[in-house]
């Protein structure tokens, strides 16, 4: 156990340091902050709502992540394949599972850091009014979990190809499915199907779980949903990394 944790920690530390040694990290953080500010203040007209809440701010996250998270996740495995380092990584005395979890965690922590840097929003609403900080905390949790769900899908697509563009586009499509699965135009596509199929498709959607957390409700059901998406996607990543090592 201790050994496993140490391996995961060693790989994750390297990954995370790697983000900050290349411009990727800085560009990502700046774009994330600028865009979330833009949508919150300009598009949702934050001040006009006259409410001390971060609802408009969090509303945009699920959409921003749709493009920003695959941009981070696309390189997770494609880059290892392209540079050939996958051959070093997978012949080190660690398991592929440890490498997958470590790389995922590093990217997720990085996304978390970008999220933490939005703290001026919290200060602003507290300065302007009396927001429910519990709801804000749950909102952050929901945002972080959604980023994790998208990231796990990006990890999956990046394991499938050494081409980062293909990896990015496939990840965006998968994440979009997660976002839109419960939306009537999507469920209407399968109206011919039995109820349970429609329910299943709609049940895959991240939206109801995200919304619940935005309302400040932290329910086991929603946490289980996020854990299952991540668990499934990372498991599938493992299967693909294992079967496509040499390709």
């Amino acid at each position, binding site marked *: 156990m201790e050994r496993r944790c140490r391996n995961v920690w060693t790989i994750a530390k390297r990954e995370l340091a790697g983000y900050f040694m290349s411009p990727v990290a800085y560009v990502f953080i700046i774009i994330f902050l600028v865009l979330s500010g833009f949508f919150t203040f300009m598009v949702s007209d934050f001040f006009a709502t006259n409410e001390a809440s971060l609802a408009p701010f969090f509303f945009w996250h699920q959409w921003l992540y749709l493009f920003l998270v695959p941009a981070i996740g696309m390189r997770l495995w494609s880059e290892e394949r392209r540079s050939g380092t996958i051959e*070093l990584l997978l*012949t080190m*005395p660690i398991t592929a599972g440890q490498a997958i979890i470590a790389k995922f965690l590093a990217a997720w922590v990085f996304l978390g850091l970008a999220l933490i840097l939005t703290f001026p929003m919290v200060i602003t609403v507290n300065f302007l009014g009396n927001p429910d900080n519990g709801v804000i905390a749950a909102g952050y949790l929901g945002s972080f979990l959604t980023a994790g769900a998208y990231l796990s899908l990006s990890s999956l697509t990046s394991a499938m190809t050494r081409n980062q563009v293909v990896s990015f586009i496939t990840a965006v499509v998968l994440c979009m499915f997660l976002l839109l699965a419960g939306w009537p135009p999507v469920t209407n596509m399968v109206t011919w199907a039995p109820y349970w199929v429609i329910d299943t498709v709609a049940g895959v959607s991240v939206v109801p779980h995200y919304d619940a957390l935005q309302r400040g409700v932290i329910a086991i059901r929603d946490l289980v949903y996020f854990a299952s998406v991540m668990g499934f996607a990372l498991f599938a990543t493992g299967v693909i990394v294992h079967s496509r090592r040499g390709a």
Partner: protein
Amino acid sequence: MIEALNLVKWFGPILAVNDVTFTVERGEVLGFLGPNGAGKSTTMRMITGFLPPSSGTVRIDGHDVVDDPIPARENVGYLPENAPGYPEMTVTGFLNFVAEVHGLGGQDKRDAVGRVVEMCHLRPVLHQPIDTLSKGYRHRTCFAQSILPDPPILVLDEPTDGLDPNQKREVRDLIREMGKEKAIILSTHILEEVDAVCSRVIIIDNGQLVCNGTPDELRKRAPGAGSVTVGIYDHKAGEIKDVFSGLKGVKRVDVLGEHNGAVQVKVYPVRQDGNPLELGPVLANVMKERGMVFGEFHTEKGRLEEVFYDVTRAEQEVASDTEKVSNNVG
């Protein structure tokens, strides 16, 4: 130490490695020779556990690399083809990372990193990102990571690729030195390298093992191995030829021509079990008996190039006859 048993690897319809079996013991440096696309890298990837074999097994110190991978990998240092490295990392960052993955920390880690930095002369580039290194330094950085945990087994895919002649020599000296207590496999297509470092050679062609022996044993398989060239004064070419042809152990005598008043002939020995018979004493005796005065006397040891050419070319001819699946992927 390393046991490769009946290794086979298919890539879709391509048979890249076809039933390769060999073992390497401690104290041996095994040279893996073969033309490009022969299957050297694929075999090494199976030995290090990067690629699972389509059939066959690899055991490292008794641990199956597929079923029991972690103990197997702990004992193997691997230099992949093209010496990959994390482009944005510095050389020290990279080496420290590799040390940590192998469970080294604190003073042990500093010692291990310091040792390979000295051995591979990396001090001048310690703080440079890997993607800014020259090819020689990048190669040595990756070589350094392979020997960093001081593993008992090394698998080196073209370890001197991209190095200048001095660096090549240094790396070879290093490998020969380490080969005294480790089991090492290295692939190459440079024949002089085999002589410089290897205690045993395997030639693989079209995925198949075609030769396995010491460099000297291999050399004896060269068509010209064991032949004697001698220059004799004051005798007619025809007479010399008659005398030598009648001797036991002589297969053929070629007259090469006259040079400074001496007739030059080349005498080829009969082969027994593939090995040429020793002609030197026989010829020296007969020349002494007949009072033949000779200038030059030279026994050919056989050249590895000849053997290499011989076995890999023969194999290609067979291949085109039997309509093997062509290797159409680069």
